[in-house]
Structure formats: structure tokens, C-alpha cells
């Protein structure tokens, strides 16, 4: 790598890191607020917050996990599945997300007829 390239890449990293950190920090605030309202039973507000968090930081697996749980609680099962799958795509080794997803699948399977007739 030439010196010019090295400087350019370094500069990009220096400039980009705070922007990324800001986005994660803003998203985290939305997630925390979402958790507070969900604990008080205000699930629609929680969905708004967690959707906002995933828009601010589309790599935030925890936000997708929380959003999936809220969708599940609201009976929006297709959206819940998509959000869980996104969360697992971002953090495939996260056992807590996997556990939530497994429990979701158990319920979701009950909505599908067994012999399909």
C-alpha cells in the first residue's frame, strides 16, 4: 500500500468512526427507551423506538431482536420472523437471540396445519 493510500484509509477511519459511534449511541438510546416502555406494556411505542434504532444502525442485532419480540407480542408473526432472522444474521453466535427465535418458531409452527389439507 502506498503512503498516499495509507493516509487516505487512515483519514477515512478517523472520520468514519465517530459517525458510526454516534449512530450506535443514538440507536442504543432508542433501544433503552423501547425497553422501558415495553416493560410498562406500551408495545406500540416500543416498536416505534426499535424500528427507529434499526434505521439508525442497521447492524444493531439487539435492536432487531427486541423488535422481533414486540412484533411477536402484537401477532405480526411474519415481521417477527424477518427481524429474528436479521438479528441472527448479524450475530449468529448470540445464544439469547437464538433462544428467543427457537421459542418463536415453536409457537409459529402451531399456526401451520399439520397435513396441509
Amino acid at each position, binding site marked *: 500500500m502506498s503512503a498516499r493510500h495509507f493516509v487516505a484509509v487512515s483519514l477515512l477511519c478517523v472520520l468514519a468512526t465517530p459517525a458510526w459511534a454516534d449512530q450506535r449511541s443514538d440507536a442504543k438510546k432508542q433501544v433503552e427507551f423501547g425497553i422501558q416502555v415495553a416493560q410498562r406494556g406500551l408495545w406500540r411505542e416500543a416498536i416505534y423506538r426499535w424500528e427507529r434504532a434499526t434505521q439508525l444502525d442497521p447492524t444493531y442485532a439487539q435492536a432487531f431482536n427486541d423488535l422481533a419480540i414486540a412484533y411477536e407480542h402484537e401477532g405480526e408473526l411474519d415481521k417477527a420472523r424477518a427481524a429474528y432472522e436479521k438479528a441472527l444474521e448479524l450475530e449468529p453466535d448470540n445464544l439469547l437471540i437464538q*433462544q*428467543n427465535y427457537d421459542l418463536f418458531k415453536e409457537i409459529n409452527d402451531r399456526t401451520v*396445519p399439520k397435513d396441509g389439507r
Partner: protein
Amino acid sequence: MVLGAFAGCTSYFEIPIETPIPPKLDTSPFQRVLVAGFIAGGSQDVDSNLETVRLLRSQLRTKSKLRVIDADALPLVEVAEEQGIEMPSREAPPAPAEGAATATPEEELGPIRDEKDLEAFQGLFANVDYWKRIGEEYQQPLIVTGTVLFTPHQRSGFVQREQEVYDSFGRRRTVPVRTYQERKGYILRPTFIFIDGRTGETLHSETFREEVLYSINQSTPALSSYFELMDRLLPTFLNTLSAQKIRGTRVLLK
């Protein structure tokens, strides 16, 4: 255990949720439901037709918005015979030896013993004219019918159980022990068929299989086993006709 492993390195919050499951069938065109009767087979210790009719009606009365019609259960085996459907024929089992106290499983079973025997009755459920006529008789309700096979079952093999052991210091702990056991129980295989009482056509059908096994020394009445097995599949049956809420716990993450 998973939660414990993660407790140290991530913020999590357990939260109770209630997932609403929409009904599989649109029952809005119906105000009434007729649990008509079932082709029952297997053990003769339980009248699976009458018990299933009674159980489903009582569940639907409390857990569905449809009005449950009280009527005698239809003798569907006789109806099938009238429609020219032949009952499965078998050779009579040999007479029990003199003084034999207990019946063998062969003797406990009626003429309908397995799924193959039930196949003969598929024509009855597909007989649109018959079900339309029943529908007219009861003001065009949603009709629930089908087959119920409740058969005794025996299985032997290795079973793992926990055994208490004490070490030289008198400390108690449990260890898994594999033992060979003969077990007996029942298999319940119901197929619920939902028929539109206005047209006589099948709207939906669903088949289940549940099994229970007990130690060979344990004496469990057949009727108790029947209810134990039905209890497992009732939530799914009810979810066909009405929305259900399933309670659970999930983990929110920061």
C-alpha cells in the same frame, strides 16, 4: 443456563409476552358449530366417538364464540354402512383359554384397528350431499367430524432415569442410569375434519398423533390416558376455530 452464561457480558431483561395466534379457519360465516361425531377405532375400553364429541363440545362452549349445537352424536359407522361403505373385515380371534383372566390387546380392539381400516371411510367425509343435508337439518352450521384412533401400545427399550447415590462423605448426588424397561400405554391419532354446513364441502382437516407410555407395573385407566393425550392437542384444535393467546417469556437485549 444460557441466561446465566450471558449474564456477565450483556444487558438483558426477561419480559413476559402474549402472542395472539389467529384462527386457521375463517368462521365468520357461521354462528353455530355442530360436533357431529367421529369414526372411532382402537381400544374398546373407551368410546372414542362419544368422549371426543363431549370433550370438544365442552371446550368449544367456553373457548369459542360459536354456539355449540346439542344433538346426539351421529353413529357414523352405521351411516357409512348405509352408504355402502364396507367395514374392514377380520377373522375372529381365537377363543381365550379357559380361566384366562386378562384380555390380550387383540381382543380389546374393535373392527377398526389402524389407519388402513379408516381409509375406507374417506368416502363418507367426501360425501357432499350427505353433509349438506346434515347442514340443512341444523341450520347450516360449521360441522366438525373426522376419525379417532385410540390404540394400546407396548414398547420395550432402554430408558434413562436419575438415580440417587451417596459418596463416602455421605453427600447425595444423582447420576443418570440407563435401564431396560417394558412400557405400555396408548397412541391417540385423531383427524379433525371441518365441513361447511352450507355446501357440505370440507374446509380444513388436521391430523394429530400423541403417545403416552407408562411403566409396565403402573395401572392407568384407558380413559385417563385418553384425556391426557387429548389435553395435549386441544389448544391446537381450538386454534383452528378461534384466536388463542400463548403466554411466554422472551429476553430483551440492550
